[in-house]
């Protein structure tokens, strides 16, 4: 999670946008820091360093504390995510119905570990601990679209067009 960002350049940071999130949406409160970071991440698809430095100055929390939070919680990423994100649920019900094999298959197919992004930035493979849709196990979610009772075959069908793009 905490590897340096080597694959692409830092995006241009819109400080007015950041200020709006920090001050208007969350009133500049330190306690809302996690939610501010979530909003920033939704926008940039990760937490750019320049944005974190700005956040640190704005709410008066040391940068080390911000990075402590960023590396503690699983949802934060310090490197950009791919254009598409595939989540495979590895909750217990999904695990019992073979989601582990699916993760392994996709990891092999893409040549990346779970949590990582393909070199061409097309696809990120993520695992999630439970989506609360256990009756549909195993569940795969591609770009927020749920695919119940997923199989290795189905995932191939979903991914092949993306990889061929």
């Amino acid at each position, binding site marked *: 999670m905490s590897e340096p960002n080597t694959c692409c350049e830092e995006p241009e940071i819109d400080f007015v946008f950041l200020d709006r999130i920090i001050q208007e949406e969350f009133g500049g409160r330190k306690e809302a820091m996690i939610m501010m970071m979530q909003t920033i991440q939704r926008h940039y698809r990760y937490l750019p360093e320049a944005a974190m430095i700005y956040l640190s100055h704005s709410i008066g929390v040391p940068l080390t*504390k911000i990075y402590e939070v960023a590396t503690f919680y699983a949802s934060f990423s310090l490197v950009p995510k791919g254009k598409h994100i595939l989540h495979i649920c590895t909750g217990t019900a999904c695990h019992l119905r073979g989601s582990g094999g699916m993760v392994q298959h996709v990891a092999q197919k893409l040549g990346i570990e779970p949590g990582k992004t393909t070199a061409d930035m097309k696809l990120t493979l993520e695992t999630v601990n439970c989506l609360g849709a256990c009756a549909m196990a195993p569940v795969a979610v591609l770009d927020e679209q749920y695919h119940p009772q997923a199989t290795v075959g189905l995932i191939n069908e979903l991914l092949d067009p993306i990889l061929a793009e």
Partner: protein
Amino acid sequence: MTTSSPAPDLSWIKKLTRPEDLAAYRNTLIAEQQPDATRILVCCGTGCKALGALDLLAAMKQAVADAHLDVKVAPLVKRTGCHSFCSRGPLLTIQPQDIFYQKLKPSDAAEIVQETIIGGKIVPRFLYKPIGSKQPIEKRSEIPFFAAQTRVVLERVGVVDPFDIRDSIVHGAYSALVKVLTQMSPKEVIEEMKISKLRGRGGAGFPAGLKWESCARQKGRHYVICNGDEGDPGAFMDASTMEGDPHAVLEGMAIAAYSMGSDRGFIYVRMEYPLAVQTLANAIRQAEDLGLLGQNILGTGFNFKVSVSTGAGAFVCGESSALMSSLEGKVGRPRPKYIRSTEKGFRDSPSNLNNVETYANVPKIILNGGAWYASMGTERSAGTKVFSLTGNVNNVGLIEVPMGTSLRHIVYDIGGGIPNKKELKAVQTGGPSGGCIPIPKKFLDINVGFGKLAEIGSIMGSGGMIVMDENTCMVEVSRYFIHFLVEESCGQCTPCREGLTQMERILTRITRGEGEEGDIELLEEIGTFTNSFSLCGLGTSSANPVLSTIRYFREEYEAHIRDKKCPAGVCKALYHLEIQPEVCTGCGVCKKRCPAKAITGEKKEPHLIHQELCIKCMECYRNCKFDAIAIR
């Protein structure tokens, strides 16, 4: 994961300024309804939504519009929370006839409207048939899955539209709050809670009344916090409650706040539950607009403001002190409990934390009395409990039963038994730090409750219940849970951080066929140590999956270590798949399904798996209708 928000029409909102206004408002709403009008309740819980329930909802609305029905009182088609019978989704119930239609497609909508709504006829192919029965069941209340339940917390879930507070008010929401504001002193509320014997539903089972009392006793600003960080994989009780009946949770919190003199509340919701966040935020807004939350509630001078916060993906934040630290915008690390949170918790102030289900019980207890609640369940575990029944069981979904119900009743009568004629092997309760209860041996008739499960080496936890069949490898399951906990351990105390890491290493070795003599004993030693000396509740139960599987399935560990075999056919290094030529009919399904192209064979001739290509994804095994594929 995205949620589409319903278009809000808020012209009806008028602030209620006196306690008696609520009952009057409720009567007006009831009078506007035709009691015998047909209502179509479409389940839009997370499960059904994943299966396309929102498309079904839109199609139903369109079909009703196309039919030009003379509908005086809207809505005829209603979006509700989880109906709880998730394995039959997308589904709907037609009231007041109580017709239950399941496994629907948007294209079925027109037929339902024409045949059933207009024609008054049942469409048999939409009805539910219990496994092994040809007789379809018309009424929802006659389906064993529903008939065998006692719904207290879930009473309004799947019945009301969670995005419209009026619907909840019609069904009694906030009348318990009016009762405490007008008829009860804070002390009397706490007394009623103590009589109810309600124990915290988050896992630890601390009596709620006692917790409220000790928090109320403290000086300073009090906080009321709701734990909606349902992190246990395989558990979705709290999600469905927040999504299906948000006002029960909010009303419970407001009553708690009144009893301890608090004016501020927080609900901490898992980030994986966007629908719950949306439902709660909408519910809070509507309740504030009506004067049921916020400043000067119902003109009584009582203030209570609630806000929703989301987590950021850390299992440990389900622990109370870690949750409070996360609410403060910090990393979620548990702290030692020399001082309880009820004395010094959130913002170093007295804080009462309960989980979603605990608060959702409160309005019912206030309305019906603590004694009524205590009359359900057992002596030590009063009331009902919601479980999410998942895994290898026919009827997957949410169930609510009185405490003390037997596992047999849950798995067979409500759950409908094990699919594909497999044998029941174990039931796992309590999430990753729970334990696996072996079923056929002796525990099928065990009564589910706080004490009983702890006696046999598991915990009740928050209510996840995962059924495992004969194709489940207990060593691998225990490795799976330990791996989960290694990733989620916050890492501050050594027994949990190091103990789990070492246990995972050993278990991984065993599942790869590299187990050694003495591994079992070593696991027991590390596990016992980890459970004894970790800091927080998660650490002190983290070795349960290992210890309980060794206790009950030792022979399976031995088979892995000594014989280098995985009897259940799960650990890839320890088995291979073979097609039995004498059983194979040559139908070709396995060949078509195999993603690795590892199967060859002519039609109507026995097929062959090429071992060097096989990735053991089990697609062929699961899809062979003739059981021709053997685990060797």
